[in-house]
């Protein structure tokens, strides 16, 4: 094979590769694009779209969503529940993750496996007995119950991620603080915790997103429409108003957008968090 032909082959391979990326990329992005197109199409007109490009662009679906449907209320509920459940999980989970990372005690391995197992088992297994318990405790259809339910989703994740972050901080600094007379508690509070701050921020965001995305708990534990989170709110558009594709897509877009923006801002940290074994 001559040198020139080899180079030509390489170029052909590059072009094929670039073509592959474009085709696959367009296919993968299409559902997101299509959500946008339908959300911007006047109500009732998406069925007569004749190409994959929008013809008549309007924001009326978003106006309808916020004026004629309680979308704002649902979004607010989601924000409240996600903030509270993520913050509380972080408050309880950080010290637990620290203990699992630094202290040698009997049963540490078991605690870790249990935490991992709870994170990985289907939430439907928890939600049915939780529903019965909350019915007895009077927590059904309340924000408090909803926050507690989401803590069961977020706390294992927070513990597991916190352990990972503390593992990555060298213990020497705390050792030095202890030689200077710090107690273990103050070494944790004044040395380890500030060092872990960026990690804790990532955990908070991860927990927030997990709660924001949740559908099952929100659907099961809440009945009143005024307490619905956005996830249950927008899913109610399917079936009930099933011909109103445009409104559905506007709602879906509104609900997905904040998380996408957060992701774009924090892309690198989230990706490394995912690699450390705490996916979803």
């Amino acid at each position, binding site marked *: 094979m001559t040198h020139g032909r080899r180079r030509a082959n390489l170029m052909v391979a590059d072009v094929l590769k670039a073509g592959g990326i474009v085709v696959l990329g367009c296919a993968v992005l299409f559902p997101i694009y299509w959500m946008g197109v339908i959300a911007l199409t006047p109500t009732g007109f998406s069925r007569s779209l004749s190409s994959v490009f929008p013809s008549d662009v309007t924001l009326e679906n978003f106006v309808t969503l916020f004026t004629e449907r309680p979308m704002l209320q649902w979004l607010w509920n989601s924000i409240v529940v996600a903030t509270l459940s993520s913050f509380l999980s972080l408050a309880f989970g950080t010290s637990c993750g620290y203990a699992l990372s630094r202290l040698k005690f009997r049963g540490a391995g078991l605690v870790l496996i249990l935490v991992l197992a*709870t994170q990985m088992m289907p*939430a439907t297994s928890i939600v049915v007995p939780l529903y019965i*318990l909350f019915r007895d405790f009077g927590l059904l259809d309340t924000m408090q119950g909803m926050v*507690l339910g989401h803590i069961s989703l977020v706390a294992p994740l927070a513990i597991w991620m916190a352990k990972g972050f503390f593992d990555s901080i060298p213990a020497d600094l705390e050792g030095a603080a202890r030689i200077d007379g710090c107690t273990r508690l103050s070494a944790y509070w004044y040395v380890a915790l500030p060092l872990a701050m960026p990690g804790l921020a990532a955990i908070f965001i991860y927990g927030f997103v997990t709660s*924001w*995305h949740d559908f099952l708990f929100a659907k099961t534990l809440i009945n009143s429409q005024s307490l619905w989170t956005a996830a249950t709110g927008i*899913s109610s558009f399917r079936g009930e108003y099933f011909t109103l594709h445009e409104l*559905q897509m506007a709602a879906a877009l509104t609900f997905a957008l904040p998380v996408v923006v957060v992701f774009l801002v924090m892309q690198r940290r989230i990706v490394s968090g995912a690699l450390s074994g705490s996916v979803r």
Partner: protein
Amino acid sequence: MTTLSHSQDGKRPGNPPGRLRRFMTEGPGFAVLMLLPALLVLGFVIGLPMIKAVILSFDTITLRRPAAAGTIGLHNYSRLLSDPDAWGAVLRSALYMLGTVAGSVSLALGAALLTHRVIRLRALARLTFLLPWTVPAVVTALVWGVMYDGNFGVINRLLDVVPFVSGHDWLIDRQTALFALIIAQVWNEFPVAYIFFLAGLHSIPEELYEAAKIDRAGAFAQFRFITLPQLRYIIAVIVILLMILGFKAFPIIFILTGGGPAGATETLTVLTYNTAFRSLDFSYSATLGILAVLVSLVLVLGYLRVMARADTGKGGAV
């Protein structure tokens, strides 16, 4: 050590509050202080429901027959063993896992192989394949529901262009419903695998490919004899992680079909939900939930084993 001798020399060695304080900040009490809040909370929101699930599974709490409450026994478990719906659901869960794992791994590996050496527009190329991951499952379900729509869905419109293929009610036909759901799920979750594959491909030493080029190995041979063997631990981790995700899957199935048509997409998680909140048989639902927990425990143990092996072997990025 310094702190220990310091306080022994100090003025208040036997002072009870001081001792308690030391116990809490230095001794075994510290571990308790650090662990207890989380364990109490987890005990309340996970431990208690699990215990309640076991109790429910021996009881007869069903709103269809309220008078039967308090009938304790193993009847839910014997019903489970001979219930074709339950085992059908297990089979559909298995199919769903198999389909999503196969689809996500091939799509993610393809995308990773295409993009990992991209130099121009690198960030854009990666973002493209990560973006579906940021889309909530609820939104994924709604979007694919609109696209699958039998009358106005864009998928049927696009297929109109292809000869000999006619429009189809993807989610209403028993033959295609599960497959259609798997595609939506794969679209939503393959980026997880994509991230792992990108990291894995980066950890393969470049010299291996250079040596192969000197031996005139073609692209396929390089993939077969270098890339795949080097990625084997990552593939194992990803497969089991995706199995766990596929087994847990709920919102996409529930919102798009609710387990229908006629149970064709009723996986174990959806059956657990429907048994409780449609048939209102909480005891049997709890029994199904326990079965699901047992299955996921097996998966978690598999995950831990694979992770341990990936750590000891040449695990690369994992």
